[in-house]
């Protein structure tokens, strides 16, 4: 960050990267969404409710939610081995647990609902972008939901709490806090943290994640409206400039 508090990519501390969402991008899927967030390009697709395989794992009182977060080999600077890494297995788990509170799984006993998150190009914050896209894909699939789930990360760069870390800030910065929540129910469904935060910084970070997340939520709603109500929503991309005006 320079002396005026401007970040490596020209943003202020409370600005999001350019963000674009589109619902209904995978023809075969029951629901899908594409999110472009900074350099992230992430596709989410939902299949189900469908028959559970293997059968003996089906749940008598609710649907079994499955989630796979995967990074394409070409999504990062150095080719990534396509086999699922321990990191991807952990992220698949936390994404599933971030989405589950929003779903009425009890409406679909003995079935499976599968969420696929494919990172085609990765920048910082791919898990929260993946969650944001997955929530859209689940809504697009018509799964009964209590609320959407919005992901948004905050971090610490040069001792200051900043919104939405990019790749460089993620690697060079001193802290990262991926966060996801249900905006209307005020429930936090994902929180991870690394790096040093004082108690006050921690509180400030949670507050900032929520403020940033509400902007993402607005775009999520608009993306759904665009698909389901003709002329219902404004044009796709929300640029940095627009957010600046709002803030």
């Amino acid at each position, binding site marked *: 960050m320079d002396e005026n508090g401007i970040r490596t990519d020209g943003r202020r501390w409370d600005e999001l990267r350019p963000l674009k969402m589109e619902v209904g991008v995978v023809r075969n899927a029951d629901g899908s969404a594409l999110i472009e967030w900074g350099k992230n390009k992430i596709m989410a697709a939902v299949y189900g409710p469908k028959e559970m395989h293997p059968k003996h794992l089906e*749940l*008598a*009182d609710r649907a079994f*939610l499955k989630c796979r977060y995967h990074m394409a080999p070409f999504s990062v600077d150095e080719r990534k081995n396509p086999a699922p890494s*321990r*990191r991807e*297995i*952990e992220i*698949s*788990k*936390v994404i*599933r*647990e971030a989405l*589950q*509170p929003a779903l009425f799984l009890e409406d679909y006993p003995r079935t499976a609902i599968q969420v696929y998150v494919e990172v085609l190009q990765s920048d910082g914050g791919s898990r929260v972008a993946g969650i944001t896209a997955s929530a859209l894909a689940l809504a697009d699939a018509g799964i009964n939901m209590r609320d959407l789930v919005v992901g948004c990360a905050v971090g610490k760069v040069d001792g200051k709490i900043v919104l939405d870390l990019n790749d460089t800030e993620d690697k060079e910065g001193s802290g990262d*806090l991926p966060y996801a*929540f*249900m905006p209307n*129910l*005020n*429930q*936090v*469904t*994902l*929180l*991870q*943290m*690394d*790096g*040093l*935060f*004082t*108690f006050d910084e*921690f*509180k400030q970070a*949670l507050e900032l994640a*929520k403020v940033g997340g509400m902007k993402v939520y607005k775009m999520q709603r608009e993306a759904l409206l665009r698909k389901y109500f003709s002329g219902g929503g404004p044009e796709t991309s929300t640029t940095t400039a627009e957010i600046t005006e709002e803030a």
Partner: protein
Amino acid sequence: MPAKSFVVETIKRNQIVELLSKGKRADGRGLSELRKLEIKTHVIEKANGSAMVKLGNTEVLAGVKIDKGVPFPDTPDKGLLIVGAEVLPMAASYLEAGPPDESAIELARVVDRGVRESEMIDVSSLCIKPGKWVYSVFVDVNILNVDGNLFDATSYAVVSALLTSKMPKFVMEGDAVKDTGERVPLPVHKIPISVTIANINNTLVLDPTEQEEAIMDARITLDTEDGGNLCAGQKGEPGSFTPEQIITAAEWSIARGKEIRQQIKEAAGHA
């Protein structure tokens, strides 16, 4: 995870929730009270450091092995510190042998994160020859008996084992690495303390037992370092927290963390 029958779960849940509504827990503890924590160090002679931790009926054993290793290309002058955890099939009736599942992977990665992000071990002083040889510190944890809160028990075992570790002193002799035979303590800078809190029907409980974990909505693990700052965190399980509950969890982690750190320091003879 235990084989869950939702009928049993509902009955058990109602029972525990009713107790919690009166501010009580099934085992008589306060909501933010840790179970009895026992730590024994130097239990494995062949390891560079080791610790056996009992947290209630949860029992874990951590062993440290230190050797020379090749650094990662992006950190040529930093030692390797790798934490692994295995839930042994002997540790509960419902477990089976096999490769680590997602819960075991999450456990190891969250404990690793706490140790790494607190900068407990100064890895930059674990270099023998930049780009060629560094010290490699492997901490492996065996879970011997499961009764809830594996995250904290594992973390306490890892931290205690590292505190009591002695590493070989390596020097370069020409192109070869030579063991001088001398044994020195690991360069420990900070002591991270993990505190896990479960949300059961909107009541927070610290250090959940297996029974409480079986019915919890969500859990959050927050690590603090010596300065009382937060250094790592992970929310888990398919439920949620309000932002206010997360702040409370952070306050509990900071307060309890101080006491637990003191206990671990004493057990490890680390004044």
